[in-house]
């Protein structure tokens, strides 16, 4: 468009103003007509040779326009705006623009920023931002108001269409949130009146008022300028609902999957699991595993929840495992932003406090330090480990730290220490229910106890309370007495204890430290450095945090002839000599049928190579093999060499699978032969199955039926072994050097082949000296004898049979199936609980106790003074070649 000279502009304006009255009288909109004339003249002058338009051009063209004073009489038909009050170039006044900028732009923006930064509303009332789409829609409200102000204030109406559309959207969103916040409005008004605070909850309402006022102005301006009016609100409302629906889709799909997966109908349950595995949101599922109830702002989710019954949280946690293959507490709890608006959030409330389950991860609780000190008496076949754990609590409430810990095979907790006000306090040992009751009582009064009880074979449950809030720490130490695992008499193995399940975090930068001494050279200690300067008898270093759960095994060299050791029981003067001897159990009969149950859970996908190796080695044993693959349904296959790769193919694993149906089928098949066995190769099993009773019934009715050898791959809890492991029909394979090596040490379950030697303990009659060549050992050997004796006594079901077991556990300060350890804060608490804390001098230590040289002298004296012969131990002795 050619530029107009000032004179031309003045001539045009003067002409227009002279015609305004005529045009009004004619029922026209003068401003619109002026704009039309302006555009018409611009078009006409486009063809003129001059570079700019002068006043003469304008006058000439205006004359040609020949606009009459009265173009046409207005008919009597209804006229939209009255000619007497025509729309006048509506421009937003400065005051109105400032008000809208404050209450329609700044206030909603500040409110959104505050909520995003602090989750103030989410933590107190409900989550106004359940998805990022909600956040974007809310952010569009101040943008829309600002754009409308700019468009109305500036000449040329910039971004007119966008301003119209966004205004409709802003009204829709602000109206929705004004309704949602309606309950808070009186509180906000009260807060403003009394404290001068409380503007934030009013932001939706003020934004709505501003958007409505702007809409009125936009409509009038559109009419005046011949511009398109703002988009209808119903259209923008529909767009907002569709956008919210898209954002809510993953949540709705996940909630639908949860409903289906929790159904009583097996087919629907399977469909729900498939839906969740393929299309569900793992984060949503995890959130549902922690949050008991959540006030929903999202209309789609709210509408969905209206029509459904809530699924119990325990069920959702099981569904999480069935979908992902991981226990819900094996991963970090969902972040605060992801759980906004939660009420009864498990991560905050810890409903399992003082109970017997590890349960949900607790927010703010973490393992701050970990240190393992150990001493191995390799020739004696004894080890002692002390694991010191420091918990830190960054939350504002007191917390209980809980962990299920897997001990080395055959180990017992023989010491428990708690630091109270910087001083070490030793535990009292007593009956399991007695110490648990004492712990519960003290937890209820929020004082300082720590409790250790057994939780399945070679498993303990550690509970510490209270870890003080706001960065407070709690330090505890567990002493573990364990026999060395000796698969070859020339080598001893000591697997470190590891965490199976925990309710606290373990930061990646933790660097747990380990320091192991041995009285012989250490052959291998994994990532630990072996100090060659100490004749290779020390291994130390820092581990990764993952090693706390993955485990570590230390190998020490032994004299192959060291098959027996002895120690003095100084707490039983009448019969003071305890002997530990290595024996090889007789090989069991070769099974005619071997049923192999393979867990179809996701974790097993990482172990297909090991599974192939195991199946191939079992095939060589000659038994009839059949695989029962436990996925969502059980599939059965005969094993031959060619089929092995397809039987364990990675694509077969999905989610977390219930293995019980496969175990029952496998047991039935194996038992049909009369000489059958079951090998169960599985990953973590964090939930008990409903079919447990079916298996128990079979074991009770057929106690001589097939044994189930359970071999776990990887870490994590195993509730089935926790529950059924006390039954001799289930034989957990102790995790020492990996599943392949551990199964080989068994000689192959049901193969009838030779198995690895095991320790046996006995007490010699009074005055009988220890056997020739037996190595003197520390009192830990006596603790191992006591632990074995307690197991034997505890297995006797006759009335009162457990009393001697508890007494022995008290004497030797051992945690067992019938006893536990608890540290209380005061003597009064011990007295009330009927317990007595131990004399610290009797607690074991990583310093050798008592000195081996003194023991050796004592043994020599017994040989010279003693009478009678060495008692013959049960089972055949392991005598290496050259020692017979």
């Amino acid at each position, binding site marked *: *468009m050619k530029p107009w000279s000032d004179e031309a502009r003045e001539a045009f304006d003067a002409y227009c103003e002279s015609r305004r009255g005529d*045009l009004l009288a*004619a*029922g*026209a*909109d003068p401003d*619109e*007509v002026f704009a*039309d*004339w*302006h*555009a*018409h003249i*611009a*078009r006409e002058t*486009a063809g003129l040779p001059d570079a700019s338009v002068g006043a003469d051009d304008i006058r000439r063209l*205006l004359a*040609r*326009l*020949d*606009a*009459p004073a009265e*173009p*046409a*009489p*207005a*008919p009597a*038909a*209804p*006229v*939209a*705006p009255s000619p007497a009050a025509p729309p006048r170039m509506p421009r937003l006044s400065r005051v109105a623009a400032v008000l809208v900028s404050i209450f329609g732009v700044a206030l909603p923006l500040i409110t959104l920023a505050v909520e995003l930064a602090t989750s103030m509303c989410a933590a107190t009332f409900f989550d106004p931002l359940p998805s990022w789409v909600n956040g974007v829609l809310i952010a569009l409200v101040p943008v829309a108001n600002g754009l409308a102000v700019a468009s109305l204030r500036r000449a040329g109406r910039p971004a007119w269409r966008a301003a119209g559309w966004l205004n409709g959207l802003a009204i829709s969103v602000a109206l929705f949130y004004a309704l949602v916040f309606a309950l808070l409005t009186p509180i906000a008004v009260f807060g403003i009146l009394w404290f001068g605070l409380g503007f934030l909850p009013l932001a939706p309402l003020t934004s709505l008022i501003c958007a409505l006022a702007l809409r009125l102005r936009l409509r009038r301006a559109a*009419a005046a300028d*011949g*511009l*398109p009016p703002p988009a209808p609100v119903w259209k923008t409302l529909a767009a907002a609902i569709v956008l919210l629906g898209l954002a809510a889709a993953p949540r709705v799909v996940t909630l639908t999957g949860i409903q289906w997966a929790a159904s009583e109908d097996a087919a629907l349950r399977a469909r729900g699991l498939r839906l969740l595995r393929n299309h569900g949101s793992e984060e949503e599922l995890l959130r549902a595993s922690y949050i008991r109830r959540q006030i929903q702002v999202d209309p789609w989710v709210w509408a969905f929840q209206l029509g459904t019954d809530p699924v119990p949280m325990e069920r959702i946690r099981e569904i999480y495992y069935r979908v992902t293959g991981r226990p819900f507490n094996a991963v970090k709890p969902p972040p605060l932003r992801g759980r906004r608006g939660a009420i009864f959030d498990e991560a905050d409330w810890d409903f399992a406090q003082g109970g017997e389950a590890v349960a949900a991860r607790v927010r703010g609780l973490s393992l701050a330090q970990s240190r393992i000190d150990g001493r191995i008496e390799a020739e004696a076949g004894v080890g002692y480990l002390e694991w010191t754990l420091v918990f830190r609590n960054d939350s504002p409430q007191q917390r209980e730290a809980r962990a299920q810990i897997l001990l080395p095979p055959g180990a017992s907790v023989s010491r428990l220490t708690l630091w109270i006000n910087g001083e070490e306090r030793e535990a009292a040992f007593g009956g399991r229910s007695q110490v648990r009751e004492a712990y519960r009582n003290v937890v209820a009064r929020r004082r300082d106890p720590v409790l250790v009880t057994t939780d399945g074979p070679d498993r303990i449950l550690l509970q510490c309370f209270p870890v003080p809030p706001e960065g407070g720490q709690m330090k505890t130490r567990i002493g573990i007495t364990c026999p060395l695992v000796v698969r070859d008499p020339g080598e001893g193995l000591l697997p470190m204890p590891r965490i199976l399940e925990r309710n606290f975090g373990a930061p990646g930068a933790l660097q747990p430290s380990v320091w192991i001494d041995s009285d012989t050279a250490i052959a291998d200690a994994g990532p630990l450095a072996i100090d060659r300067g100490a004749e290779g008898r020390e291994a130390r270093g820092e581990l990764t945090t993952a090693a706390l759960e993955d485990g570590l095994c230390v190998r020490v060299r032994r004299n192959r002839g060291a098959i027996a050791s002895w120690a003095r029981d100084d707490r039983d003067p009448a019969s003071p000599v305890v002997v530990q001897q290595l024996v090889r159990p007789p090989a069991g009969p070769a099974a005619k049928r071997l049923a192999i149950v393979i867990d179809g859970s996701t974790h097993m996908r990482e172990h297909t190579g090991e599974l192939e190796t195991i199946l191939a080695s079992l095939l060589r044993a000659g038994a009839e093999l059949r695989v029962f693959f436990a996925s969502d349904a059980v599939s059965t296959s005969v094993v031959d060499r060619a089929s092995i790769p397809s039987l364990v193919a990675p694509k077969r694993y999905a989610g977390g699978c219930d293995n019980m149906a496969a175990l029952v089928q496998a047991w039935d098949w194996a038992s049909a032969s009369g000489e059958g066995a079951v090998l169960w190769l599985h990953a973590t099993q964090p939930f008990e199955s409903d079919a447990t009773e079916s298996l128990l019934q079979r074991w009770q009715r057929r106690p001589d039926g097939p044994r189930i050898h359970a071999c776990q791959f990887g870490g994590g809890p195993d509730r089935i072994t926790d529950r059924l492991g006390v039954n001799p029909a289930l034989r957990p394979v102790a995790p020492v050097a990996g599943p392949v090596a551990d199964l080989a040490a068994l000689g192959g379950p049901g193969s009838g082949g030779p198995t690895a030697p095991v320790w046996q303990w006995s007490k010699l009659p009074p005055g009988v000296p220890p056997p020739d060549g037996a190595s003197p050992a520390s009192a830990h050997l006596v603790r191992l004898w006591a632990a074995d004796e307690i197991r034997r006594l505890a297995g006797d079901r006759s009335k009162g049979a457990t009393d001697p077991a508890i007494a022995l556990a008290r004497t030797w300060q051992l945690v067992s199936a019938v006893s536990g350890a608890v540290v209380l804060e005061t003597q009064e608490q011990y007295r009330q609980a009927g317990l007595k804390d131990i004399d610290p001098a009797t607690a074991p230590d990583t310093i050798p106790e008592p000195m081996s040289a003194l023991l050796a002298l004592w043994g020599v004296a017994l040989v010279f003074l003693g009478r009678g012969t060495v008692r013959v131990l049960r089972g055949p002795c392991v005598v290496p070649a050259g020692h017979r």
Partner: protein
Amino acid sequence: MDDPAYLDNWTVQIRRGWIELCVLKALERGERYGYDLVRMLAGLPGLDVTEGTLYPLLSRLRLQGLVSTRLVESAEGPARKYYALTARGRRTLAQMNDHVETLVRQVRRLGETEDRR
């Protein structure tokens, strides 16, 4: 009677109603760019209407809801304003057409009646 002033006055009287009919009729088959519409109507023989008359008329028709407008951005200059009939305008045009046809038919019939007599 051969009085030009009288005839001019009579055609002005007649033209007033016809202009609106012509505007609506010109939009019957679809929307039109305002400038083209005005140039076309201004050049219509017998209608004797100027651009200056047509723009106020179009403004009034829009305010009355008989036509609607929309702006289309133009690379050559200011946004172009397009006019289109509204539903109400379409109904009004149909009524006007009926009225004109009836009127013309009656006028012609008057002449035929006189001839028969």
